[in-house]
Structures are given as structure tokens and as C-alpha cells.
């Protein structure tokens, strides 16, 4: 805890400095005591030699010291108290402590500097020719020549030599050409049921029902694909992919993990966007600048406001007490999230230095930073013992039939809360008056430190939750429709360029602007009265922006073909992987734009390709030449992700509720603290217990539902385009022993009993539901052997424990969680 009042005692300190006689030879003192210290502690950031002048300051010649940097002269000869250099090394000013992040220089050295300045700052050093200041940028233009920064070009589709050849689309022609060039051939088509299972999982995240299997044949492929694209499951599945890259979460995470009770509206917005096939360019624009777009109806207005939640639910340093630092960190997180997710490039790397490998300068970063600092981020936390930061929420327009899960309170309660606020304000005024009186009477307030601190904290921590509550209701106590999001800030500000990203070292201001990387017309400074988010969104979706479309088609591709054409789906920069099929990538990117940025059209085209229809079987010759399947000689098998595993269990047991879960569990919690959720007896320990699709499970950072955490859910604090697939014993323990799988096994057993009368029928039905096939002869024997000895179970139970144990075995099997 910081002391409540800070007293600047620079003046007092000055008097402590011992004045010693300067040596006869004036430069001798400098050479012996000052120069070595400057060289050792300062030159690294403030010298021509190192090509650096942080804060605009160099200390390697006298002139430079007298002129000083952005904050003014570093040395005023004869006046130690006016010399910023001394202020900095004495750590008198918390925002200007030198050397940075190092222990303070010794008292003796500091006294030497004071003496030296006092005596006229004698310094024989002459100016050296200045360097270029900001590091070597000779290769800047060549960095821009990197493939991903150049616009996509229309490629020539390779010719298929034989007219009746394997290829059924241009995608196939590109793939086939590469395979042939390496002396490989594509795999035969997968059988119809395997293909249907693959399609059903890939497009909806669920296995096909036995009825779908019965109706399916290859000549019905297109209509089946269209039906899957039209089903609500499509939005559920593909929204989740986007939520991974949007680092979506319903709590802050980090050191102050408080809930975001309104984040779910963004989740639903993404699901709707994919189901309605909102054009992808529009999808991005709404997330960055939805609040600035015109609207035809209140409904549209609400939708666009909710979309800006993308900028609001990032992890924040809520314990940060310094507002300047907090604002800089929020903007930084926003820059990182939007650039990684939408451009697969991290612009945030240029916060502390010009980017090491990409054509992004610090100036570009701070131009962007100004855009986000001119934006008000509304994340709706309140100040309490955990969080030092309170944030408002965005008020949505009232709509008929609107869901408002946050609770209303009686009107009398509103009055009571307002009364309490008034009382707290009075208490606060009293406390202040008391402190001032003490000072006036010459009494030391430090004596009452504990008591005053307790009182101050009582006021602050009591007020926060009340303010937070009142934010969510109207004067009558009716719950308001609210969302997380952003609006334009009260004041438009340009950000200073901070040396090494440290707010203690502001440099010159950088005009708000869209990064000048690609030479687009949408680049450049933004209008003075606007934050610049709309301009940024336009630049992002400018048809000539070389990254946006490529990055998205690559993401979509990776979800359907097991890996991206660019394997590093979140990194299209110099450190990322090169595309395996550059022409195909450009072809898809251009098609995507031509087709009005329609994700459904893109997915449709990919899954109807012959490439997608290949079998997943292993082939020794291909494996030898291309073990990573970069050339796509087969479709790789895929372990289902956490949501698919869970949802499939619910689906086959017949318990799945496919309707959207209204709101979110997080919206219904009364506490702000995630830490306390562990002790809320009314919540299941695994945070599950729902029968809805997994996308509706609470996504609390660092406190995920068991099934998500165990099966490699995307870390919700990070942009994650490609999840890990691990195989660790805790997963097996979950499948062997968890309450969730036991409940599904019981559900499946119950379903089997109602669907079939005898054991054989039940077994066949179980295989049909779980694997969309009949058991093989071998499996039949195996299962029969299992049923021979009945299972009694530990607890006395009326239940058919053998059948339940059998059902659980199927749900836990590899077949169940691998899509071929």
C-alpha cells in the first residue's frame, strides 16, 4: 500500500548534500568521479556510441547535458536542485528514476554529482557526430517485401493433365500439382459414413445422428453440406474458433480475477454472426468500431455495441493504481489482441523498441496507442479489496423481449444504496478535514496511520460495490440491458512515445494514425475529432490489405485440414512459417473477398473439394516423403476438442439440450471474485452440470470447467488459433471417474434400454449411436465377454451396472473421440 499523501522533499534532500572542496584541477574531479559513472550507468541508453538518446537525452557531451531531453535540461550548472539528472539518480521523482530498474546509485556517487553540478558541471567532452538515434532501419523497406506484406496476386490455376482427373475444384488442382511435384498421389476418398462424421464434427461439433447416416449418400453431399451450414450448430462450432482467437473470457484473470458478468453477450453475438454469415469484413469492423457505425434500428445498434466487447474483456492489471500505466496497458492489450487475431502479427512488440523483425516502428505503435487511449473501454468491474479499477458498462437500447439476466432490486433498495453513498461521501469529507486539521495543528498524521488507512479503505471498498450495483439498475431498480464494450473517449489524445515503453519516460507525442506498412490509401493520420478506430477498421478491411483475408482463410483452412497452409496460424511475420501452397492461399484470399467475405461460402468450397474427401489412412510411401502431411496426401485424423467430446457424450446419451443457454452462469453470480466461486456450495465443483452445448459453459480465466481445462481448451488470456492436443493421465482419470461421464453413461444406458429390448440390440444401438457403425466380429466377441460376468458395483443399486460400465467404456474409447 502506498502512503496516502506524498510529500515532495526534493528541496530538503538538497540540503543534505555535502559540499566538499573541488579538486584543484577541475576536470580531474569529473574524470575521476563523474565520467566513469556516466559511462557505466548511462551511456547504454544515452550516447552516440550506442546510437540511443532515450527521452531525447544524451549524456555523452556537455552541450547535450545542458540542452537536455524531452523533460528539459539535465544539468543546470551551479543549481543541483534544478538539475533533472540529480532528481533522477536520487529517485526523488517516482516517474523519473535512473538508472531504470536498477538499484539506486550509492549515496557517495550521488553526492559527487551534486558537488560537480554545484561547482559548475565542468565537463571537457565535446559533441560527437550524432547517430541515427533509433536503431538500424536500413532494411526497413526490404522487410516490407516479405511475402505476407505484399498484396495477394491472382495465381494461375494449375492445369489438370487428364480431363477426368481426381481434381473436382481449383483447390484440388493446386493441391494435386504440389503432390505430383513431389511424386505423391492423393489418397482415395473416405467412405461415406466416415466423410459424414468428419463433416458433422467439422461443421457443427457433433456426431451425425443415426437418421442422418441413413439418409446420407455421396450424391447428396452438397445438400447435406448446405443443411449442416444452415444448422444452428454451425454457429456454435465456428464461433468457438473465433472466441479462441478473441481471447474471450468472462473474468479478468491475472492477479485480480474478477468476473465479467456481461461478457456472454459478445459470445452470443459471435454465434449469431457465424450463423447469419455476417460478412467477415463487417464482422471485424463491428468489433473495432461498432459504436461508431450508423444503424437502421435499435436492434442493429445494440448488436453493434455488443460487438465492441472484443476490445473490453482482455485481461487487465486491475491492481494497478497508476491511471497512466493502467491506460497504457489496456491500450497495449487491445493492440496485441486485435493485431494477433486479425492480422496474425504482433504490433505490440513495438512498445519498447522498433520491431526486431517486422516493418513496425515504435512510432507506429504509439500512433495506434493514441487511438485506443482516445477510446473509453467499459469493462464494468468495481473497486474493492481485489480490484483497484472500476469501469462502467455500455447501456444497450431497450428492446422487446430482451434478455436481462442481471437481477433487479426493489426501488427502496436503490434509495438505500444512494443514502449509503451519501454517507460515505460525508465520511470521506470528514476524514479529509480531520487530516487537514492535524496538519494545520502541527500534529503528525503518521501517528494515526493505521486508523486512517482502515477508514479510507472502508470507504473505498464499501463504495465500489454500491457504485457497481447502481450501474446495473435504473432509478426504479429495474435491471438494465448492459454490455461490455467501448465508446469514444471524452478527449481525443495522442500518445507520447515512451522510452522502453516506460511511462516514466515520455518522449514526443505521436499523432494518432493507422500503421503505414502496406502503402494503402486508408493509412495515415486520423481526423482530430475521432479516436481513429473506424479508420483502423477500414484499413484492416481495405481490399488491398495483404494480411486480413489471408489470415482468415488460413484459419478456416486449418480447422478443416488439420493445419494451416501457413502452419503458424497466429504468426504471418518473419518468424512465422512460410506457406506450403502460396498460390492456393492467395487464390482463397481473393475468392473470399470476391464472395463478399462470406465464411459459409468459403467453408462450403473447402469441404466440397476432393482434397477434403480423402481418407485419413496412413501410407508408408507418402509418410516417408512428407511425414507432416504438408502436401495434404491425406486428411489427418483429429482428436476431438474438449467441447466436441463433451457435447458428443450429451448427444449420444440423448440428454443434449441444443437450444442456447440464456445468458451465462457468470451473469447470475452475485460475487465479483472468482476466488470465491470455489467456495460457493451451490455451484458444481467442475463448473459443469449443464446440458447445453459447451460453448455456453462459463469461461473464467484460471478457473475453467474441468472438461475444458483437461482437454486442451485455448488459454483464454492468449490469442490461440491452434490448440494443443495433449494426452495426459488426468484426462484418462476424468474419463474413468468423473461425475460427468458417469451421468452420461447412465443416460446412454437408459436410452439403450428404451431403444432395444435385448442385449444384442442394445449393443448394436450403442455402436450406432457412438460410432455410426455396427460392431465388428472381433468387437462383438470382446463385448460379449465383458457382459458374461455381471458387474455389481460398490453401492447397492437397482441399476444395470454392467450396461452402464459398458456405455462408459464406449464413451472413453479412442473411436469416440477421434474423427477419421
Amino acid at each position: 500500500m502506498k502512503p496516502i499523501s506524498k510529500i515532495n522533499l526534493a528541496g530538503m534532500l538538497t540540503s543534505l548534500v555535502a559540499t566538499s572542496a573541488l579538486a584543484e584541477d577541475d576536470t580531474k574531479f569529473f574524470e575521476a568521479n563523474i565520467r566513469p559513472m556516466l559511462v557505466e550507468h548511462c551511456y547504454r541508453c544515452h550516447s552516440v556510441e550506442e546510437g540511443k538518446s532515450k527521452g531525447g537525452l544524451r549524456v555523452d557531451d556537455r552541450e547535450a547535458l545542458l540542452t537536455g531531453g524531452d523533460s528539459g535540461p539535465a544539468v543546470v550548472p551551479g543549481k543541483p536542485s534544478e538539475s533533472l539528472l540529480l532528481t533522477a539518480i536520487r529517485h526523488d521523482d517516482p516517474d523519473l528514476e535512473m538508472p531504470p530498474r536498477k538499484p539506486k546509485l550509492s549515496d557517495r556517487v550521488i553526492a559527487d554529482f551534486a558537488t560537480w553540478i554545484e561547482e559548475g558541471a565542468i565537463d571537457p567532452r565535446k559533441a560527437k557526430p550524432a547517430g541515427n538515434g533509433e536503431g538500424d532501419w536500413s532494411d526497413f523497406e526490404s522487410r516490407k517485401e516479405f511475402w505476407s506484406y505484399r498484396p495477394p496476386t491472382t495465381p494461375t490455376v494449375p492445369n489438370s493433365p487428364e480431363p477426368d482427373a481426381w481434381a473436382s475444384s481449383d483447390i484440388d488442382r493446386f493441391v494435386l500439382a504440389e503432390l505430383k511435384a513431389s511424386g505423391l498421389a492423393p489418397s482415395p476418398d473416405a467412405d461415406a459414413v466416415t466423410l459424414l462424421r468428419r463433416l458433422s464434427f467439422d461443421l457443427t461439433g457433433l456426431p451425425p445422428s443415426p437418421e442422418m447416416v441413413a439418409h446420407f449418400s455421396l450424391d447428396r453431399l452438397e445438400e447435406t453440406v448446405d443443411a449442416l451450414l444452415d444448422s444452428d450448430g454451425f454457429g456454435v462450432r465456428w464461433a468457438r474458433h473465433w472466441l479462441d482467437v478473441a481471447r474471450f473470457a468472462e473474468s479478468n484473470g491475472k492477479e485480480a480475477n474478477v468476473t465479467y458478468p456481461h461478457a456472454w453477450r459478445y459470445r452470443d453475438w459471435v454465434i449469431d454472426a457465424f450463423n447469419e454469415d455476417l460478412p467477415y469484413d463487417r464482422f471485424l469492423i463491428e468489433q473495432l468500431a461498432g459504436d461508431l457505425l450508423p444503424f437502421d434500428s435499435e436492434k442493429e445498434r445494440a448488436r453493434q455495441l455488443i460487438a465492441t466487447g472484443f476490445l473490453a474483456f482482455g485481461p487487465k492489471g486491475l491492481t494497478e493504481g497508476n491511471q497512466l500505466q493502467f491506460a497504457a496497458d489496456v491500450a497495449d492489450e487491445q493492440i496485441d489482441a486485435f493485431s494477433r487475431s486479425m492480422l496474425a502479427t504482433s504490433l505490440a512488440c513495438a512498445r519498447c523498441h522498433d520491431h526486431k523483425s517486422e516493418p513496425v516502428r515504435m512510432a507506429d505503435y504509439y500512433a495506434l496507442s493514441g487511438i485506443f487511449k482516445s477510446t473509453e473501454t467499459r469493462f464494468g468491474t468495481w473497486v474493492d479489496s481485489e480490484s483497484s479499477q472500476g469501469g462502467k458498462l455500455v447501456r444497450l437500447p431497450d428492446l422487446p423481449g430482451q434478455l436481462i439476466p442481471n437481477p433487479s432490486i426493489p426501488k427502496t433498495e436503490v434509495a438505500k444504496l444512494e443514502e449509503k453513498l451519501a454517507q460515505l461521501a460525508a465520511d470521506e469529507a470528514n476524514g479529509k478535514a480531520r487530516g487537514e486539521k492535524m496538519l494545520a495543528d502541527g500534529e503528525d498524521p503518521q501517528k494515526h496511520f493505521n486508523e486512517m488507512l482502515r477508514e479510507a479503505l472502508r470507504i473505498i471498498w464499501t463504495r465500489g460495490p454500491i457504485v457497481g450495483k447502481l450501474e446495473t439498475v435504473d432509478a426504479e431498480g429495474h435491471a438494465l440491458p448492459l454490455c461490455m464494450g467501448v465508446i469514444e473517449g471524452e478527449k481525443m489524445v495522442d500518445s507520447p512515445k515512451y522510452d522502453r515503453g516506460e511511462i516514466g519516460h515520455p518522449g514526443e507525442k505521436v499523432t494518432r494514425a493507422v500503421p503505414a506498412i502496406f502503402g494503402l490509401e486508408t493509412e495515415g493520420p486520423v481526423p482530430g475529432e475521432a479516436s481513429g478506430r473506424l479508420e483502423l477498421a477500414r484499413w484492416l478491411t481495405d481490399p488491398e490489405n495483404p494480411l486480413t483475408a489471408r489470415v482468415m482463410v488460413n484459419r478456416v483452412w486449418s480447422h478443416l485440414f488439420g493445419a494451416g497452409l501457413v502452419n503458424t496460424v497466429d504468426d504471418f511475420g518473419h518468424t512465422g512459417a512460410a506457406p506450403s501452397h502460396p498460390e492456393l492461399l492467395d487464390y482463397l484470399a481473393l475468392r473470399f473477398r470476391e464472395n463478399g467475405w462470406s465464411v459459409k461460402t468459403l467453408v462450403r468450397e473447402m469441404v466440397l473439394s476432393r482434397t477434403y474427401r480423402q481418407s485419413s489412412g496412413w501410407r508408408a510411401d507418402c509418410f516417408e516423403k512428407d511425414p507432416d502431411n504438408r502436401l495434404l496426401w491425406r486428411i489427418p485424423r483429429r482428436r476431438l476438442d474438449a467441447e466436441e467430446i463433451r457435447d458428443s457424450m450429451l448427444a449420444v446419451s440423448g440428454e443434449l439440450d441444443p437450444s442456447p443457454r440464456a445468458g451465462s452462469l457468470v451473469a447470475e453470480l452475485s460475487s465479483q471474485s472468482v476466488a470465491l466461486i470455489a467456495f460457493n456450495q451451490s455451484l458444481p465443483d467442475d463448473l459443469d452440470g449443464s446440458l447445453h452445448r459447451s460453448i455456453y459453459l462459463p469461461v473464467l480465466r484460471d478457473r475453467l470447467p474441468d472438461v475444458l481445462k483437461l482437454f486442451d481448451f485455448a488459454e483464454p488470456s492468449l490469442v490461440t488459433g491452434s490448440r494443443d492436443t495433449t494426452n495426459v493421465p488426468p484426462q484418462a482419470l476424468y474419463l474413468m471417474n468423473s461425475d460427468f461421464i458417469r451421468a452420461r453413461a447412465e443416460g446412454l444406458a437408459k436410452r439403450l434400454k428404451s431403444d432395444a429390448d435385448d442385449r444384442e440390440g442394445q449393443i448394436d444401438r450403442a455402436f450406432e449411436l457412438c460410432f455410426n457403425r455396427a460392431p465388428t466380429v472381433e468387437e462383438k466377441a470382446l463385448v460379449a465377454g465383458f457382459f458374461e460376468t455381471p458387474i455389481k458395483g460398490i453401492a447397492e443399486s437397482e441399476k444395470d451396472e454392467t450396461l452402464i460400465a459398458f456405455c462408459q467404456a464406449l464413451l472413453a474409447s479412442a473411436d469416440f473421440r477421434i474423427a477419421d
Partner: protein
Amino acid sequence: MKTLRTTEPPFASRREMLRTSSLGLGWLAFSALAAKTGHAVASTAVSASGLTPKPTHFPARARHVIFLTMRGGPSHVDLLDYKPILEKNNGKTARTGRDAIGAKLLAPAHPFARYGQSGLRMTSLLPHIGEHADEICILNSMHTDVPNHSPAFVQMHTGSFQFVRPSLGAWTIYGLGSENEDLPGFVTLNPPAGDGGARNYGSAFLPSICQGTRLGGSQLPGLYAALLKRQQAPGPPMKNIANEHLNLAEQRRQLDLIRGLNQSRLRRDPHQPEVEGMIESFELAFRMQSEVPGVLELGDESKETLELYGIGNGNDIFARQCLLSRRLVEAGVRFIEIASPEGWDHHALLSQNIKKACESVDQPVGALLTDLKRRGLLKDTLVIWGGEFGRTPYAPGLDGRDHNHKGFSLWMAGGGVKGGMNYGATDEIGYEAVENPMHIHDWHATVLHLLGLDHKQLTYNYGGRNFRLTETSGEVAREILA
């Protein structure tokens, strides 16, 4: 897509193994092998799944770490950093540190004592720990970046308070693997739910196998524990570790059915390493069911040992955790973390509360050191005792101290650390580290070094950048290496 450093293939080795073997060393082949030579082979083969012990960068001094975290900022000037001037000038105005001006220096609330042959000075409140002074190295020049609990606590664990980064334990597992395939390599017992929570044992972008396994429930944040009048009781030892519906023989039959189904799948296409992995994973899990409760139960410990730790004296959760730590080390767990039962955030009532806090840890930690030593485990087990920062030498009120991140102390023992020594120093009143300053990064670099890992080589490529625990700095304190 995450890539691994090229010199270190363990996470990819399964694939390598399969790639180089023309038939694919399928599970069937493996099981025949395993049947011949028994469990030892099983463990080795299983290790291909990622936890295999890995070669170190140079010879390791420590193979295990027990990290005793003292949350809240233990007062180094009362506990580990003896500053006679505080006694002499008690009540006089502090002259160092801009926040301090006006505040009065405060003498240690309890006297210091000399311990062991080395005469190491520590508070007289830690006599049991003091018995091991000649094994203990006090780091007196620690410093960190921020004086707030949560960020500093997270930085102590992950090196960064701003970004989501893997924890020290996760980096350890990433670098060294585990010694026991039947147990997780990194275990945290009843970790605090606040101050970063799971972040402190998370793996962030490292493979999730590196993350700490939480045993027991979360500790209630102190404030809430007081409000709710609830004890910080541990929850169930480990989730999903037992089946409530089937007995062991029945479950074995069920697993055999699952294995049969999976083998049937393998026969359709033998080249499916992920299915082999699943089969092994079930076998491991089955063994864990037997092994884990055995490690967690203290029933086979002698009465003398239980008494040594102070188990059976009412509130003995921390004592149990200390004993459990030793058992986990014996079982081959690489990194174990436990947190002190009392907080160390002594803004007020310092003299009585620091006594209480010391009493809550002294006997159990002393016993842990004794126990490790007599079993020959201390030489390769690094025991760390410390919190996220220290406290000011001056008092803002009458009997309390403020947070101080500019200079503080922690101690380490065993695991190749020189005993009976102080390393580094703060200024004369204990405010700021001045001699051999040791930033969190330096400390992390030193801990990794003791484990045989070079902090500069232990990197992971995430999103196009090589990350390491120590970011861009970190110096190993070579003077403390035994």
C-alpha cells in the same frame, strides 16, 4: 503451432521413434517388450509421452525443489537481515527512500540470534529452522519490480507481472521432465486462490503437461477466510482419483474392454500413435489411482516423525503439507510448492503477528529439513523459503511496516547451495539492495542453474518469439553454489 528447441526432442520423440521405425513401434510390440521386462520398461516407453527425465545443460546440483511460499511480504529486517542501527536509532527519522522521509525507523520486534557453527543471524523466533543454519544460505539482496502483493507474487512465480507466462515449476518440468511417470511432475498443495491463483502454477504457452497439478482445494484468500470464519481447510486430495461405482477388479475389466476396443482400432490402421498414447494413458491413470493415495496418506509414518513435524497438534495443515512434500520428493515429484498458513503482511500489530506467523512455520519447516537430511534427500532437494517482497525498516504507524520491494531476503537450503552464509546486502538500514543485488530474474536464473539448466538456453518459441523465464536478464549468483 508450437515448435520446440531443436536440441531437446522429448515431446516429439514419440513421433521420431515411430518415424524411424519402419513398422511403427506399435503398442502390441511394446506390450510384448513390457511383459518381458516388467514395469521398468513400461515407464521408459511411456516417457515418450513427454515426461521423460531429460539431460540437463550441465550437471545438476538439485533434482527437486520444495518451494515454501510465505505470502504477504515477510519482514526481512525482523527475520533475516540483521540491522543493529535500527535498534540504535529506533524512533528516529528514516533517511533513505523517498517514501520514508518523516517515518520513523523501527527496531526489530524480537531479538535476533546467532545459529550454528557459522553463527548465521536470524530472528530468535525461528529456533527449529535455526538448527539448520549451516545448511542455509540467506539471500539478503533480493529486489523485485512492484510493491503490490498480487503482481509481486505472480512475478515471483513467473518472472513477469504484466504478461501471462509459465511458472518456475512449469519451466522446471519443461526443462527436466519428471522422475515418476505415475505422478505429476509439479505439484502444488492447497494453493492460494487469490494473488494470481492458477497463474502461479500455470504452464501458459508451454505444453500443458508442464503445469502444476493442484492437490487439495484452494486456500481461501485471508480476508474472506476471516469474513466467513472458515478455516483454510484443504479439499479432497485429487480430483477423479477414485471410482465411486466400481471396485478395482471391475474397473480393471472395464479398462480391458476399453483397451480391447482401442486395439481393435489399431488393428484397422496400426499407424496411430495417438491411440497408443491413449492406451498408455489409461494404464498410467490406473496406476496413479493406487499410487497417489498411498503418497498422500501419512499412515505409514512413525509416531516420532509425526511428532517431529508437530502433526496431531490441532491446526497442523502446514505440518502435514511439509511432511507430504518430503513424501512427494521421495516419490520422484520434481517441484512441490506449499504456502504458509499465516500471512506475513504486517502493517499493524507486527510484534504479535510475526510471532504467530513464525510459530506456524518454524517447527514444520525445521522438521522438513531434519527429515530430508537424515534420509539423504537434502543434498539434491532445494528448499526455498520466502515471500514476494520485504518490508520497510521504518514504521508508517507504531507497530507495523510497509511493503518494500527494493530490498528483501529469502533463504535457500540443500540442493547444492552453500550453507551458513549470507549473500548480498541491503543498505545500512535494510531499505534497498546495494551489494550483489538479486532481482527475481537473477534468483530464477540461479534456481534453474542449481537444477542444471541454463536459463538462457531454456527457451520456448511461442508466436514467433523465443521466451524464457528470465526475459532478457538474469545473472547466476555463483558465490552461493556449493
